[in-house]
């Protein structure tokens, strides 16, 4: 039987009715139309379903929707820069050709955001390790690393200004 779920998604309060067995990825996609959340393997292995819950990057395919009660969720649809335009990570992914098919990209960007929020000075090695739970089969990762390094520098610059 469906149960009520109150949560904040991309800054807005939402009240939903969800089955107890629904996962967060399915709920965000099908109930809220947030299609930037992708499902790749449904076993927590590929990372394409990553969203940010209370500041932490989590696998939404393994996260029961009801566990999101009272929490603050950020999906790619809610990500933006300070001026309301693209976030520096989004711009850097464009500038560095850091995506191809784009299926893993929302999750890759959100995971990188969680990292840089946590550690604005992340080194190349730290970036590589933090993003290792997100598979990308197209790019070879090289340009993803370049993009995150570039965004890191721009975000540091931005916070100094």
């Amino acid at each position, binding site marked *: 039987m469906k149960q009520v779920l109150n949560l904040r998604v991309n800054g807005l309060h939402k009240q939903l009715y969800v089955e107890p*067995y629904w996962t967060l990825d399915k709920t965000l*996609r*099908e109930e809220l*139309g*947030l*299609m*930037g*959340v*992708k*499902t*790749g*393997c*449904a*076993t*927590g*292995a*590929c990372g*394409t379903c990553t969203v940010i819950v209370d500041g932490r990057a989590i696998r939404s395919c393994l996260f029961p929707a009801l566990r999101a009660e009272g929490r603050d969720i950020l*999906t*790619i*649809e809610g*990500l933006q820069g300070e001026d309301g335009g*693209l976030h520096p990570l*989004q*711009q850097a*992914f*464009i*500038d560095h*050709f850091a*995506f*191809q*098919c*784009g*299926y*893993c*990209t*929302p999750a890759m*960007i959100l995971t990188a955001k969680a990292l840089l929020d946590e550690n604005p000075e992340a080194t*190349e090695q730290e970036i*590589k*390790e933090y*993003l*290792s*739970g*997100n*598979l*990308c*089969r*197209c*790019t*070879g*990762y*090289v*340009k*993803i*690393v*370049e993009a995150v390094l570039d965004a890191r520098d721009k975000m540091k610059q931005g916070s100094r200004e």
Partner: protein
Amino acid sequence: MTYSIVGKSVPRVDGPDKVTGKARFATEEGIGLPGMLYGKVLHSPYAHARILSIDITRAERLPGVVKVLTSKDVPAIRVGAYFLHDRYLFCRHTVRFIGDPVAAVAADTVETAEEALDLIKVEYEELPAIFDPEEAMKPDCPVVIHPDLASYDRPTYKYLGEDLPGPNVHTRFRIRKGNVAEGFAQADLIVENRYAAKRVVQGMLEPYNAVVSVGSDGIITVWACAHCMYNRIQYIVSKILDVPRSRIRVRSAYVGGNFGSGERASRYAAVLAMKTGKPVKLVFTREEVFIDGFNRLPQIIYIRDGVKRDGTLLAREVRVIANSGAYSDYTPLILRNGMFCFSMYRTPNFKLDAYCVYTNEPTSGAMRGLGNEQPINAMEQQIDILAEKLGLDAVAIRQQNLITEGEEDIRGEITHSIGVGECLDKVAHWISWGESSREPITSDWKVGKGLALGNKYSQIDTAAAAYVKVHMDGTVELRHGSDEVGQGANTVLAQIVAEQFKVPMEKVRVTWGDTDLTAYDFGAGSSGTTFKTGNALVRACEDAKRQMFALAAPRLGADPAELETKDGKIYVKYFPEREIPVSDLFIPSAPGAMGTLMLATCLPQGGEILGKGTWFGKPSTENVATGQGKKLTAFYGYTAQAAEVAVDTQTGIVKILRFASAFDMGQPINPKLCEGQMEGGMVMGIGTALWEQMIMDKGRVLNPNFLDYQMPPLSSIPSGEKAASFIASALHQEGPYGAKGVGEAAMTAATPAIANAVYNAIGVRLMHTPFNPEEILKALQEKEG
């Protein structure tokens, strides 16, 4: 030659969509569609069994279930790819692999559909099964997987089904050139080895999925993660539903990777939608993609090379046994075309016999290439072995034997546009070839360098057609029927159109992914979209410009041949000040007449400025006994790859320290996109060389998920200055702006480059992929006796 937009790394046109989550994939289609049902497929648990009975009554009674289908509900039509129609939609009497579809369910939720599968009762009688292709190919093999093979329909490449040596062999391909016996007789050194490549999976992150709806007009709309909208999806759905292709509209937006994996969901969604009259969405689980996809064709390769003391290759004899799995799909073509890789070296005497064999394993297919990286691994380790035995340098022996412009290759084709030698020089220089690797990290770790070459032809007997529409504001819209699988097709094709019309990228619009709006295209296969669709587009642009100039000529008082276009204006070549904007063409020729305003956005004649263009491959005939012909490929792309590795002799772990790729794709239309292909190929190549394999146990896949099947994570690959990509262009006379293609060949040399580097580090030859720690420790133990 310099161009304004071709050759520039302009940003991808799909960037804003893809970084904001707005990009729609087929998985997004159908969500929220009223009345939509969810489909699921029931797969066989046996590798080989007779179906005694199927009882669907309990499944049908489950609340929420709308339809349960088995072979009784669909026509007894065997389908396949274009080569050999050997597969029913649902197994009729026999299941031939663990995963073979037996039934399908449509229900109101995915969960109900899954529950219904458990309620379908199938009684099987298990049959003896066979998994080893070398056993299966024997003439007296007691297990015969397709007893009626001789009667199956072979719509194309019929000769591949002739003169088969055993009841489970479905394809035989030969190449004959010169006389190998004479070649070996003159050789100073003969080296013979056996190589093998395991079953691996493409690993695209978007699982197979489709949504199909049938309109009241009978038009069937298929949304799918389509790789080849016309060629695979429309063709198969048309066959299994027995509906003409004109009634089937295939739609596909962005595709979440493909790498040759094709698509399996749309045919089941289509039949469920037809039988229920409701839209049906069907998404394969990751496990289903592993077991019921088309994973990379495993091959066993016996190769024998004869060389002169100075390194000249005199003779090569190759025998390939490929494991097709239970059905053929694309494997007849994969087996044939994979062997074209041997054309890279001048080989006066060449003999090849290749066989594709049914087994009771999952169905095989293509992966980033068409069966070529497996023989390339053999070819490129052989040449290192020959060099070492002769005391020659591995770079020099390759340069000495590489085929050059204008020479005839092993298949009788005159070669053109060969940049592989330059690729080799670039990676050899980058990795400081000839200098030994830096010191080992600890005494257990040994360091080594290796390099290898790779190539990939592009299929010639294909076609592409495209439209170009000029809008009133000077925007040029291109409509193509290829696929945006991530390679950047939309960007590259838009660049070609921008160059043709001399407009900025912002003035080009791309329409794709809809067979109602686009013309036939072979699809994004065979590294061919830039070359084939690009050529079709150039012709469509020329056609559109012809129409535009014919309309403009009287207004400019010039001959159409004297006109040019730039920035949305048409001008006279030698008097550029005589110009009119494109929008002027849309004003009626009798200004002031009644109704002028209503006509203001229409051309006075001709309807629209709509250019059309076709590229059609023109193959020569092929001698089926010798594989010889004058024109058998559209072009070859080439690569060289070099690796520096560290091997832990205690654990068998290999680390890639540095890696470089160089590629000859002809004119790069967008160099950054080409780099992306090389980097992606590097990582896929590292994965398939070192770790990736579907672990099979009597037909069962033991690791059908991304936890147990290890694709390379970011932490394992070189980045920054440890990874390099170079472009070495040999322009192609038939390519748009001299372009060829990039994509498939980008991973072909990685496996032998790594194998050669491991040999350099620890002195053992690894001939069976993947080179995992187990294999390495075993080889080290054997070496130490």
